[in-house]
C-alpha cells in the first residue's frame, strides 16, 4: 500500500507518520503543499502540526493550498484520506468533513494519553478493531473541541459517521473522560462515504510500547487490510 503524506509549512508530525507507516509496511511518499500533482496512491494523509503557524484559524490557510484541490479530487474517486490532529482541522476547514474544531474548553494545550472507544468498525480505518473496543492513544492539541449543530449531529449519528469517542479506561463515555469539551465526546468522524477520516488522537505516536503504548497499530493494520483487498 502507498500513502502520500502532505507536508505543509509548519507540519511537524510528517516525519512521525512517515516512520509509523514504514513500520506497518505502508510506503510513504512525501508531497509538498505547493505541488499540483498527487502521486498514484490509495491513501492521502494530512499530518499533525501547526500548518501556517495556526495563523488565521487552525487548518484554514492549509485548506486553500494548491495540493488540496488534488486531495479533494482524490476523495471523489472514493479513495482514502486520513487527517490527524491538524489534518483533521484542515479537513473540517476544507469542507471534506462537517463541523468545527474550537479551542479546548480549558483554553490550554493538552498533551497526554487518553482513551477512545471505537463506535463504528465498519470503515477502512477501523476494520481490524472490535466494535466498542477501547484504545489508548495520545492527544496533543489546542483546538480539538468538536462542535456541530443539532440537525447535523443527528445526521452524523444516523449515518454512523462518529467513529471515535473519548472515554475512560473502562470504555465509559462521560464528562470526566472528555479532555477538551468535544460535543458528545467526539474524537473522530468520517464523511458519509467513510473514505475521509479525521481524528484528534495521534495513532502514529502509539506504534511502539517503548513510547508508552502501541494501540495506534489497530488503525494502521486496518488500513493495510483495506489496501490488501
Amino acid at each position, binding site marked *: 500500500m502507498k500513502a502520500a503524506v502532505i507536508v505543509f509549512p509548519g507540519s*511537524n508530525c510528517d516525519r512521525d507518520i512517515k516512520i509509523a507507516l514504514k513500520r506497518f509496511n505502508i510506503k510513504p511518499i512525501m508531497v509538498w503543499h505547493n505541488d499540483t500533482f498527487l502521486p498514484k496512491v490509495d491513501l492521502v494523509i494530512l499530518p499533525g502540526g501547526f500548518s501556517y503557524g495556526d*495563523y488565521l484559524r487552525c487548518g484554514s490557510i492549509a485548506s486553500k493550498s494548491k495540493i488540496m484541490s488534488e486531495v479533494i479530487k482524490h476523495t471523489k474517486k472514493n479513495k482514502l484520506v486520513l487527517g490527524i490532529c491538524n489534518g483533521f482541522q484542515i479537513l473540517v476547514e476544507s469542507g471534506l468533513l462537517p463541523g468545527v474544531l474550537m479551542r479546548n474548553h480549558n483554553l490550554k494545550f493538552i498533551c497526554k494519553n487518553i482513551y477512545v472507544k471505537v463506535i463504528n468498525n465498519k470503515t477502512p480505518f477501523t476494520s481490524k478493531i472490535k466494535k466498542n473496543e477501547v484504545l489508548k492513544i495520545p492527544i496533543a492539541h489546542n483546538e480539538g473541541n468538536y462542535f456541530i449543530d443539532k440537525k447535523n449531529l443527528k445526521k452524523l449519528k444516523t449515518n454512523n459517521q462518529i467513529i471515535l469517542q473519548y472515554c475512560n479506561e473502562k470504555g465509559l463515555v462521560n464528562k470526566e473522560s472528555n479532555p477538551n469539551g468535544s460535543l458528545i465526546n467526539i474524537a473522530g468522524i468520517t464523511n458519509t462515504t467513510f473514505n475521509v477520516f479525521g481524528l484528534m488522537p495521534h495513532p502514529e*505516536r502509539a506504534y511502539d510500547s517503548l*513510547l508508552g503504548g502501541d494501540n495506534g497499530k489497530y488503525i494502521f493494520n486496518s488500513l493495510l487490510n483495506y489496501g490488501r483487498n
Partner: protein
Amino acid sequence: MEETNLDIAVKHGIKKEEFKKIIKIMGRKPNLVELGIFSAMWNEHCSYKSSRVWLKTLPTKNKNVIQGPGENAGVVDFGNGDAVIFKIESHNHPSFIEPYQGAATGVGGILRDVFTMGARPVANLNSIRFGSPKHPKTKYLLNGVVSGIGGYGNCIGVPTVGGETEFDDCYNGNILVNAMNVGIAKKNKIFYSVASGIGNPVVYVGSKTGRDGIHGATMASTAFDLDSHEKKPTVQVGDPFTEKLLLEACLELMKSKCIISIQDMGAAGLTSSSIEMASKGNLGIRINLNKVPCREQNMSAYEIMLSESQERMLIILKKGKENFAKKIFDKWGLDFSIIGELTYTKKLEIEYNNEIVGSIPIHALGKNAPKYKRPWISHKLPKKKDLKKILKKIKIKDVLLKLLSHHNFSNKSWVWEQYDHMVMTDTVQAPGGNSAVVRYHKKNKGIAATIDCTPKYCFAHPYTGSMQAVCETWRNLISVGAQPIAITNCLNFGNPERKEIMGQLVDSIRGIKDACKFLNYPVVSGNVSLYNETNGQSIYPTPTIGGIGLLKNLKSMITFNFKEVDNHIMIVGDTKGHLHQSALLYDILEYKDGPPPEINLKKERKNGLCVQQLIQKNLLKSVHDISHGGIIISLAEMCMSGSMGCKIELNNIYLNKINYLFGEDQGRYILEFNNKNKLKIINILKKNGIKFEIIGKTQKSNFEVQEVLKIPITKLTKINNNWFKKFTLN
C-alpha cells in the same frame, strides 16, 4: 551623525570609565550608532564582564568533549560518529515583564543556538521559578510562562521533555525562566561561528528586522525597579512558525557544503552576531544596512543594528554558492539577502544610505571588552542548630500529607501536559521521572537529560549548594541507567556589584568546578544572568544545572515506579538524618536557618557508579534518587507512579524516625528488586564498601510505615494532584 556625550553613554548603561575607554579605543567620541553597539556588546549579558575571570576556572574538557564553551552550544561525543549538542540560557528579565513572549522567545533562542551548529533539536527542558503563590503576580506569570514555553515548543515540533517548576518568596520580583535544548548531529557535520575567507558574502536569512527588542540585552543587565513594566517594548516577540521554516531551511542548506560559518542573531541581534563571527576569525566585516530586510519603514541604522527581532541568522557563505542557497530559502518562504562581506580590516564597518555610519575595531567589542575582578566575600557554612524543640510536635503522617499537597512537591502534570512532550516519537521517558530519556533517532541508544538546582541550599551555603546541584543531575542520570557525560549551566544571581552577591557567584562557580572535576563531568556550555534583583532584593543564588547522559542500550533503561508486589526495597548510601534546609524544616515549618546537607564527592561517585553497575547487570526493577523531602517522599513517588504500595519497617533503624524519613542526606538511592537477586546485589554493594539497608517490601494499594502510618495510594495520588488545578482555577 548624532554626537554623544557621557550622559547619553550612562543612559546606555555605560559607566564613566568605560566611556573613557571607548574614546581611547576609537581615538574620538563614538557616534550614536557606535555607542549603541558598544552598549550592546559591553553589557553584562553579552560580555560576561563580571563572571568571565571565574568562568575560566571551570573544567571544560575531557575525551567526550568535542566543543566546550565559546560556541553557540557545547558538543559532546555520543559514540559511532554521533554527537549531542546542548545549551541552557536564561530569559528571566523579559519573562517577568511579558511572561508569554519572554518565555516563548527564550525557547526560540536556545533552539537557534543548537540548530545553528548543525543539529536537529530533539528535546527541550526548562527550569522555571516563581515568587510565592500568595504574591498577586504569581498566577499570571505562571500561566504566561507555561503557555509561552508550550506555545513555542509545541508549534516548532520539538518535545518539551523535562524541567522543574518551583515557588519561593525570593523570586517575587524576579522570576527565572531557564530554557535548555538538546540536539543531535553527526560528529563530522558540526557548524561553527568562526568566519574565514576575505571577500566571502555575509548573508542574512529568516524574519525581517523590526523595532522590537531594541536594547533587550542591556535591559537584561540591570536590576529592576518599580517601573520595570515600562520596559515592555524591549521584549521581543516570537514567531515559532517562522522558526520552524528557518530550522528546516538551515538544516537543508547544511546538507550541502556551502556554509563557512553560521551564527544566530540572539541578544544584541545583528551587532553581536556579525562581531562575534568576525572576531573569532580575526577578520573585519562590512555591512550595508540598506540590504537588511526590514519590517518597518524608515528604520535608523541604530535601530537596525540593535533590534532583537527573532528568528534571524547570519551566514558566511562560500563565494559562488549564493544562488544555490537562495533557492532553499525561497522554497521555505524566508528572506535571503547578501548584506555584506568579510574584509581584512579587523573593523566592523556599517554603511547606510551611501554613508559610513559606524566603524569600530572588532576586537574592542569582542575579545578586549572590559572584564572586572569585582570584590567579593566568601560565604561561611552556617552552624547546625538544636532542632529538638521544633521537632517535638511533628506527626509524620501529617507532614507527609502536607508535603504532597505543597506547591513545591505536588504533581506537576498541570505544567507538562501543556507541553507537547511526545512529538518526534522518540520520547521514551516522559516528564515526571528521574530524568527524561529521548531515543537517539533510529538507534537503540538514548539521551538522558535533566535540569536541577536547590536554591535554598545555595542560599544557605553557595559552595555546597552548587556542588549539590551538579551532583543531583548526576544522580538523576544514573537513576535512569545512563552514564553522565557533561553539563550546561545557567548562573542566575543578583547584582554582582555587591560584594556578598559576587561572593555567592564565586563560591558557586567553585562548587560547580570541584564537583564537575571530581565526577569527570565537564561544563560544555552555559549562560550567566546577573542583576536578578528588584529594589535591592536579590533572588537566591540559582545555578541551574542541565545534565546529559548516554544510555548505550535502551534495554538497560530503568524507571522509578514500583513494578511488582513483594519485592525488596533498599536504601543505598549514608542516612544521617540531615534536616536543616529540608522540605520538612524549610517548606513545612518555615525554619530557614542552618547548613544544607553535606556533599561527599567520593561517596557520591562510589554510590552512583555502583547503582549504575546494578542497573547494567539487570538486577533491579526500579531506581529513584532520594532528594527533596527525603526517603518518605521518594517512596511515596515510587508508589504513586506505580499505583502500588509498600510496607516499611523501621524498628531496627539507628536514627529517630523523623530524621530517617525526612533527612536530605545526599548521594542516596532507593532500589526495588526481586528476592532472587538479593544476594548478588548485596555482594556487589559489600564488595564496593557501600552502605545499604533493606527497609521493607512492595505491596498492593497501601503506603505503610509500620506503627507510623497506613494510607491508600489512591488517596496520596489525589492529594498530590490537587494543588495546581486548585491554584490556577481560583
